[in-house]
């Protein structure tokens, strides 16, 4: 409580010091939050169904960024100053990246996690770390140890102005990609037959199997969906930030995982809320001028939030308290 109040006071002080800077940073935070939301949903989906922290997810997201760069520049010859032609190119890249990441994630599940279904709980967790390192090195092998840069194609012209702060198209497009994907996911999970199977499997695998649900296929499907989301996030990240490096996936993945825990792991709206909050906190911390710790401490702040949440409210902001949650 004290921490939250202190942080709020610090934010208000910053707001009064330089409102325009504050709003600018807040908008950046919202945009980053959208990207985190896509990744966090992947964590939350997988955790909801298998109770597994899929450490490899962040690295799949990183590979998604790499795929985006390669596909858009090598296959579609994306470069600056193409005008409206970038719209089909970006869309095509997005779809291809999502498919690639979805298939990758589903095959990871088949190879690495499925044989361990009956093993002690920690076994798949340890395996997930191993897989994460392997994927990181796949990125290193094919894309090298340096930052890989994408063309900065989105126009920076403003969409709207607020207190003298411009909101550029490059940020708006990230939001424009994220929101339909989120709505689609929500529809899939809550309205379709397959979504019903996913929810049933998450609640009780044996009971779901008795009801005639193919549990293994449902789990594979969940990993596929999580991979699709990671691919979308990768595309957004690569085109918005314009640089990707092979080892970024793990860190960003952990930040996204924190977002999922913050919102209540296993809870889809919670993951989005948590991601936006984490995005804002990161942006405020790194961008505000008045007495903020700065980007050197971002990770420490994010992980402190993670630890505090897990210790004091393991069910997260929106989750329900379960008997084993504590």
């Amino acid at each position, binding site marked *: 409580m004290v921490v939250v109040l202190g942080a709020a006071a610090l934010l208000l002080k910053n707001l009064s010091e330089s409102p325009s800077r504050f709003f600018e940073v807040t908008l950046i935070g919202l945009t980053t939050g959208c990207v985190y939301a896509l990744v966090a949903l992947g964590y939350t989906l997988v955790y909801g169904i298998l109770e597994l*922290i899929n450490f490899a997810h962040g690295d799949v997201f990183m590979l998604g960024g790499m795929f985006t760069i390669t596909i858009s520049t090598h296959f579609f010859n994306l470069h600056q100053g193409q005008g409206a032609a970038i719209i089909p190119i970006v869309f095509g890249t997005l779809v291809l990246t999502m498919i690639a990441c979805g298939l990758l994630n589903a095959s990871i599940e088949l190879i*690495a996690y499925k044989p361990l279904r009956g093993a002690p709980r920690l*076994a798949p967790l340890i395996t997930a770390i191993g897989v994460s390192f392997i994927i990181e*090195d796949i990125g290193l092998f094919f894309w090298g140890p340096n930052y890989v840069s994408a063309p900065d194609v989105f126009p920076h012209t403003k969409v709207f102005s607020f207190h003298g702060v411009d909101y550029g198209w490059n940020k708006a497009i990230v939001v424009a990609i994220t929101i339909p994907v989120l709505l689609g996911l929500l529809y899939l999970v809550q309205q379709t037959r397959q979504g019903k199977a996913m929810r049933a499997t998450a609640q009780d695998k044996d009971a779901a199997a008795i009801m005639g649900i193919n549990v293994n296929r449902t789990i594979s499907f969940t990993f596929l969906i999580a991979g699709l989301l990671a691919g979308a996030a990768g595309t957004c990240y690569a085109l918005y930030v314009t640089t990707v490096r092979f080892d970024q996936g793990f860190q960003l993945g952990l930040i996204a995982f924190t977002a999922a825990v913050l919102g209540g792991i296993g809870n889809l709206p919670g993951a989005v809320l948590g991601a936006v909050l984490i995005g804002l906190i990161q942006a405020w911390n790194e961008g505000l001028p008045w007495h903020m710790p700065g980007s050197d401490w971002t*990770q420490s702040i994010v992980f402190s939030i993670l630890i505090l949440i897990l210790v004091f409210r393991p069910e997260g902001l929106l989750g329900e308290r379960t008997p084993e949650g504590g």
Partner: protein
Amino acid sequence: MSTQPASPPEVVGIRNVMRARWKALPFWHRVAITIALELVLAIVLFFLDHALGYAVATVSTLLWLRRMPPLPWRLAGELVLISIFLFAGVSSLAAALAIAFGVFWVPDRYRGKVIAGVAITLAVLYPFYAEKMFVIPVFGVWPDIATGVYMLVFMMMAVGLNIVVGYAGLLDLGYVAFYAMGAYTAAWFSSLQFPTHNFHFGAVGITPSLPGIHISLWLLLPLAGMVTALTGILIGLPTLRLRGDYLAIVTLGFGEILPQIARNGDNFFGTGFNLTNGPNGITPLDSLGFGNGISHATSGFLPANYLTCCHATVLGHQVQSTDVFFWTAIVLLLITVFCSLRLQYSRLGRAWIAIREDETAAAAMGVPLMRTKTWAYATGAFFGGVAGAYYASFKSATFPGDFYFNISVFILCMVILGGMGNIWGVIVGAAFLAYLNQEGLANTGQWLNTNIHAIGNLQLPGSDSKGLDVPLFASGIYGLIILIVMLFRPEGLIPSKRIAAEMHETEQHDEYLYDVQHHEEGT
């Protein structure tokens, strides 16, 4: 009903079918096929690299010898093999084989103790014969003494982590935080880091007027251990209530926060307070040493100062300061192993096992969960801290760059590869992986690049030269090791019986409903 003979169980799955067919072959056919395959393999590899071909032939001979009746065939074969290598001029390999064969002639009852004794003796004598050892194919020369110190330090850490992960079953993904804590504790109290304070106590090799805190490193090793154990308790108290995977992620969080503090700790939020000297690290540290008094009393056997000591020539080998660090590390490792072994079957150790196997049942039987888990944490942290402090004093420096998440996974990989819960397995796993990390991967990479043209001619993005830089891919290699071990042998190479039984528990009963359904679909 009872007249119907039981039909043999149906064999399912390609692996099992192949195995059944193989078992159905006549004995001599199997022998002939195996020998032929081994010969082909040896010959093919011989053309890749002569030494590797010989090595494969030797190893398969060894495997065959193990299956022979001991007298007279095995003995005769062993003598022949040893004399072949003697005549070929590889006397170090002949000696190694002689020792290995000798150990296997010891009766089962004493073999464990004999192996331990021989291993310790060989390790202590290692500096004397390291340079005379044969070259291993692919892996190259034997590790040098500095690598030996590195290996021993990581063995200590792996044994410490084994207490947390193997005994108590708490997955700790931030063990590197304890390593860092130990290293920085040693550095703070034996360097120029706090020049405004002036305190000397038993430090060797420095002038009394030197500013900063200088305490004898012999006191600092246990002190670092205790500070780290205290950190472990502080981290553990709020978090150990959490379930297994939440605990893992919290420890991972601490493992990321502490190194970041080390990295940014040269100027806390602009206050100018310099705790860790930031990315430049703290260097140099004082030297280890016993001081002049003890050194004279033991007539120079215990050196006064490790860095300036040792010009004696023993057994044709000039003793160097690295050797003394090596021997000290062996002593520290032995202490760690002794404590760990004594703890394993103590009251506390049995409580750890109970918690690992079933927390609820353990609590119902009156095991105090929090206290027992916290003790596991504190004990594991203690050894991590001592190892960190010792390694910092060996390198005479500590840098925040040494404490990345990779190291936590690296140590975890050692524990998993060797076999969780089994201290001997963990030691072997740690020795092998630490060697790989320090020298093995580089040597292997060199071998791959020179002998396999497809790899040697690779042009990878972002690298200036051709070929595969294997050490760059170290973490992926550990990841692969973790994956393979978890999938095919989750109890590790040298398993503890108990853990193996736990890992395969569900294979005997309790099959999941949804997998049953899956089988039905398949048939």
